[in-house]
């Protein structure tokens, strides 16, 4: 090959390289742009209505000014707590079964399929299902059922978390190298112990990410709450009673005809997003400390 042709090819190659890099950067920007736009607009609209009252006061009747969403912030916290207590253990447990014990079996196939379908169920349907199953009927011996309650909302959100937690747990466990499992078995460690103490621990950064994804997703859900927790204008920490929740409060305020409420809805949206980011960051920080850093 002549030296000219060689030079031409080499220049073409570096051109293609730069072109593809530029396209990748462009795609990244397009992905980030809406996120930044939403956040900036929220900051712009929300901060003006944010004050201390917002965090320590409950809503006031129409016509009066002031008031806050303290009860809704607390309510959301309680709902997400209940949801996580239900969704995280069941999701992780099912994920462990799929990856470690049920491999290739019919039961695993059925569970995986169910989880995928559940993942695609619209949230309003999850709310209706919770309503039909535990809000409308009183189930004997099961407390909190038969009426609107914080508990029923937590259940609806918790079941929405399960498929995400389950499938990410499964995928993260399958990524743990076979050699690591063999090392544990070769030491005479029983299989169940090896799964819990070695495989799950090795996969834990990914599993935690999955849990946080599920958490962040349900934290902003409104539809499942409409038929379950109903909403509440007053302080309540009772799992047996209707409770306020940020997304629900935002929905009600945003749909209202009052400017004052619109402003509070903006402030609520900003607080909701900031709280989700804070919660996710906190969990990441706590779990990334210690010797485990080499893991991820």
């Amino acid at each position, binding site marked *: 090959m002549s030296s000219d042709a060689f030079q031409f090819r080499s220049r073409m190659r570096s051109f293609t390289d730069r072109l593809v890099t530029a396209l990748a950067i462009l795609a990244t920007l397009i992905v980030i742009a809406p996120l930044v736009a939403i956040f900036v607009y929220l900051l712009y609209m929300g901060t003006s209505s944010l004050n201390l009252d917002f965090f320590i006061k409950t809503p006031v009747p129409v016509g009066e000014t002031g008031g806050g969403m303290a009860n809704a912030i607390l309510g959301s916290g309680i709902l997400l707590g209940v949801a996580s207590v239900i969704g995280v253990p069941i999701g992780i447990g099912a994920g462990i079964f799929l990856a470690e014990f049920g491999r290739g079996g019919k039961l695993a196939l059925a569970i995986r399929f169910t989880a995928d379908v559940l993942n695609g169920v619209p949230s309003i349907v999850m709310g209706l299902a919770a309503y039909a199953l535990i809000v409308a009927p009183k189930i004997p011996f099961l407390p909190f059922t038969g009426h609107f309650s914080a508990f029923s909302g937590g259940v609806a959100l918790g079941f929405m978390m399960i498929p995400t937690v389950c499938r990410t747990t499964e995928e993260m466990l399958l990524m743990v*190298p076979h*050699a*690591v499992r*063999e*090392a*544990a*078995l*070769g*030491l*005479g*460690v*029983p299989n169940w*112990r*090896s799964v819990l*103490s*070695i495989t799950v*621990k*090795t996969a*834990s950064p990914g599993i935690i990410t999955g849990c946080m994804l599920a958490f962040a997703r349900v934290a902003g859900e409104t539809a499942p709450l409409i038929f379950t927790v109903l909403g509440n204008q007053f302080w309540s920490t009772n799992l047996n009673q209707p409770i306020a929740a940020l997304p629900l409060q935002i929905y009600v305020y945003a749909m209202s005809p009052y400017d004052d409420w619109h402003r509070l809805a903006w402030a609520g949206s900003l607080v909701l997003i900031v709280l989700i980011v804070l919660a996710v960051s906190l969990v990441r920080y706590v779990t990334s400390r210690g*010797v*485990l*850093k*080499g*893991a991820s």
Partner: protein
Amino acid sequence: MGVGIEVINLNAWYGTNHTLQDINLNIPANHATALIGPSGCGKSTFVRCINRMHETNPIARATGIVRIGDLDIYKDAKPVQIRRRVGMVFQRPNPFPTMSIYDNVAAGLKLNGYSNRRSLDEIVERSLKNSALWDEVKDDLKKKSGASLSGGQQQRLCIARALAVDPEVLLMDEPASALDPVSTSKIEDLIFQLKSQYTIVIVTHNMQQAARVAEKTGFFLNGRMVEFDSTHKIFTNPSDKRTEDYITGRFG
């Protein structure tokens, strides 16, 4: 102290693939025994039958008698008990990535419910000294993750981990094939020292390595053991034509 291993009519399968056929041999206690042969000849399967790791694969099975000391491992014991007496070092170093150096060595004991901290400290130190890694890691035992060590160090860490549960037999499946020459020679020195305390079985593709570390050598071919004799005899005056062809490099 190490114990001898007696293998009688061992057969093993992966699915319908008959990977080991009628293996009979006696592995002497407190010596190093090398197993050589071309890839796929069954030598790895053979060592995995000695600690019943073979059957962790759902499609695998084995028949025959393997006695470790007085224990008939396929009749009288559970796999978990055997693997505590028969340590294993794998081809690729496989430290537990989320654990510190200390926890890696202590893993076998801790995960089996042993928790006396003072003696755990002693065992970790002794195991790391036995695997010639102590001086390199003694200052970061709990600070560094096992995965942060170099490949050769990781393999010695894996040896320390195997030694910590105080086995009688140490199986090594090509322990140096993923390592550079310096690390390899460290592992070989280690085998030399360890065989006074343990019975060592080492699978290797490297015939010089077999000649350097092992008193006895077995040659495997197509799932059968062709010849088993003193290493000196195998490499200088093999009885079987196929052994001679293999060690002189005519195939494999």
